[in-house]
């Protein structure tokens, strides 16, 4: 699944960033320290490596709609990561469309009115899309049992989800190679996509019919400060997702207020 060198680079990365020599808890000093301290330091180091390794494990890039690929960190939807989508079911569905059209099995959990036909127009292959409209109160448990069997799972508004619960699911996502797309906020998501300035075309005062929406999609990635933004047809006249301009713009670094909000949520 991974290219053969991928694991190695991640390990190198861990060492690059671990300040081994300057650290007072470096191995040489630790040998002389009391046993309890040594144990605590070892645990801390292992935890740090886990976290770092988790973050830097390269997920498998999935086929992504070109209009969205340019905005996402890494240029594609990636397995092992969670993405949160705010304000639009269509945008979340569009994330699903690329992998599904490329033949991956996808799931939609807890989205009772999932507009399957609109999804099909975006490119979702309904034959390979599993729907669980009403997963009951144990949403995270249901999602967790689908992880691994499906390449991408789209989850409806999850309600409040604890950090611990999300963390356990995140580990499972990384281990099993599944991407999670959540309609709503999700702790420690890889990127937060939001749709704003939706502008529906084709409808007048009593005439016409909806023929497409121009909307701004903004992506705040967790690991880059600079949000990326693009104007998309979501959907266009035939229900597809297209970029208005090909190149996505980098925005100036977001203000501190936004940073803290996203760090908290």
């Amino acid at each position, binding site marked *: 699944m991974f290219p053969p060198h991928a694991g190695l680079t991640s390990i190198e990365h861990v060492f690059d960033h671990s300040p081994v020599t300057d650290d007072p808890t470096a191995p040489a000093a630790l040998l002389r320290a009391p046993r309890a301290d040594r144990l605590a330091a070892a645990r801390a180091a292992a935890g740090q490596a886990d976290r770092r390794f988790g973050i830097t494990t390269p997920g498998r890039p999935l086929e992504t709609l070109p209009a969205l690929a340019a905005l996402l960190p890494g240029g594609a939807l990636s397995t092992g990561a969670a993405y949160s989508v705010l304000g639009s079911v269509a945008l979340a569905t569009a994330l699903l469309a690329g992998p599904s059209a490329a033949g991956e099995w996808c799931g939609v959990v807890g989205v009772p009115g999932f*507009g399957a036909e609109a999804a099909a127009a975006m490119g979702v292959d309904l034959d390979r899309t599993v729907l669980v409209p009403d997963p009951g109160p144990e949403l995270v448990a*249901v999602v967790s049992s689908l992880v691994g069997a499906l390449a991408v799972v789209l989850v409806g508004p999850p309600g409040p989800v604890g950090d611990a619960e999300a963390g356990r699911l995140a580990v499972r996502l990384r281990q099993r190679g599944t991407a999670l797309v959540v309609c709503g906020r999700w702790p420690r998501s890889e990127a937060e996509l939001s749709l704003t300035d939706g502008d529906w075309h084709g409808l007048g005062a009593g005439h016409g019919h909806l023929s497409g929406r121009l909307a701004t999609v903004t992506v705040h990635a967790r690991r880059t400060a600079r949000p990326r933004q693009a104007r998309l047809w979501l959907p266009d006249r035939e229900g597809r997702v297209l970029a208005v301009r090909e190149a996505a713009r980098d925005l100036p670094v977001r203000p501190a207020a936004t940073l803290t909000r996203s760090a908290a949520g």
Partner: protein
Amino acid sequence: MLWCPDWPVTAARQAAGSPPDRPAAVLEAGRLLAVSAAARSVGLRRGLRIRGAQSRCPELVVFPHDPRLEARAFEPVLEAVESVAPGVQVVRPGTCAVRAGGLSRYLGGEADAAAAGLGSVADAGVPGARAGVADGPFVAEQAARTTNGTAPRTRVVDPGAAASFLAGLSVEVLGPLLGDPAAVDLLRRLGLRTVGAFAELDGSVVAARFGADGVRAHRLARGVDEQRLQRREAPPELTRVVEFDPPLDRVDQVAFTLRSTADAFVAALAAQVLVCTGLRVETRDDRGGLITRTWLHPRFFTAADVVDRVRWQIGGGGLAGPVARVDLVPEDVVPHGEQADGLWGGAPDEQLHRALTRMQGRLGHAAVGTAVVGGGRGPVDRLTFVPWGDRPLPRRAGDRPWPGQLPPPLPTTVLPRPVGALVVGPDGAPVAVDERGVLSAAPTRLRISGDRPREGWPADWQPIQAWAGPWAVDERWWEDDAAGRMARFQVVGVDGSAWLLLVDDDARWWVEARYD
């Protein structure tokens, strides 16, 4: 469906030239496989040991079981039936199916069509054949078997009456469908003695205990007729051809050589999530002679079944020389979901299937599934939710024109049940649509009044930025007069949210879908 009772006996007796009034039986592995009417009258039954049978009836004539002989003897019968109706399909030697549609229209009724079929069989020298007419081959065969020997020897099961007809039959008739002889025994021990009792079980329970075959049997028991089930055209690359060089004159040799091709044939179908229920076998000899025959299978063809059919067909005779070529053409293939053997052999699929079945165990059979887009005008009508493991069939056919359906782009959230809304004009009164489609006022404000259905939906009054409508919904007025006339609107609020609304005669509004 035309059925010649006790065909193995009839065929063997014809071949041996023994008189029809002596009790006779065909033997397989020490037990009786089929008995003649005369033998039955002295108490002999299928499945009896030969010793017991002979002690009850010392003058019993016993023939060995020979499927090739039976197929060969059936050949003239098929030719006779084909002279009356084209497209005869062989279920097994002694039983064949004919599409009754054309014949019954021509003759003016299904009973007359059956009589014509029976007449043709009698002309071929086989008296006493029975006929059954029903929506699907399974029900038709059961109908034929429930007839008695007196004229007209035909039973017609009316369309839609399949379930009530089957309900009174013994569960034994499901034996071949369940594929496991112990299953019928088990059903009986569970106290389910009739097909009707079996049909009343919950689908998920049947799936859990009896697996895929059980689900299929359950579906048939409920009278879900096969005709409505979608048949798919098999892509041409699924056809398999075997050429023999030099041509083979022994059936055993052909069958042996064909074995691996039959395996590949079934595997190629399984790779496309298909199984074959109707197989056309074309056999050619080295002088250009051709015999074509279509075989049906009550479940679906496995590789061994395919080889058997070829064996029967060649054994049936008709070719002037040794066999030079065999074509296997899948005529009826059905998407078989999880039912096919070996389909979930692949690791990821198996894992997926396990995960989904486990989830069904937890949340219920109908909680997990896929969506199928069918026909219809409203967005809700067009979608059908199909539980995992069931056959993906839309409620209404999508291949017909549905004038007045919504133009794309389509709503991304389609509420299964509309949610109440309020739409008012500039004067604050609800906007009404009269019977000519004239509005009382232009809609200016919208409010979703339902019990706060979803996160992120506006709860307050919202000015309307643009709207279009009314588009009359004049559907199914003949079914439910309480529904009255409805009209659809598309509305965009100032916040950029777009809605599909419904309004009725009394100016009551609902949100049907949202473009979000």
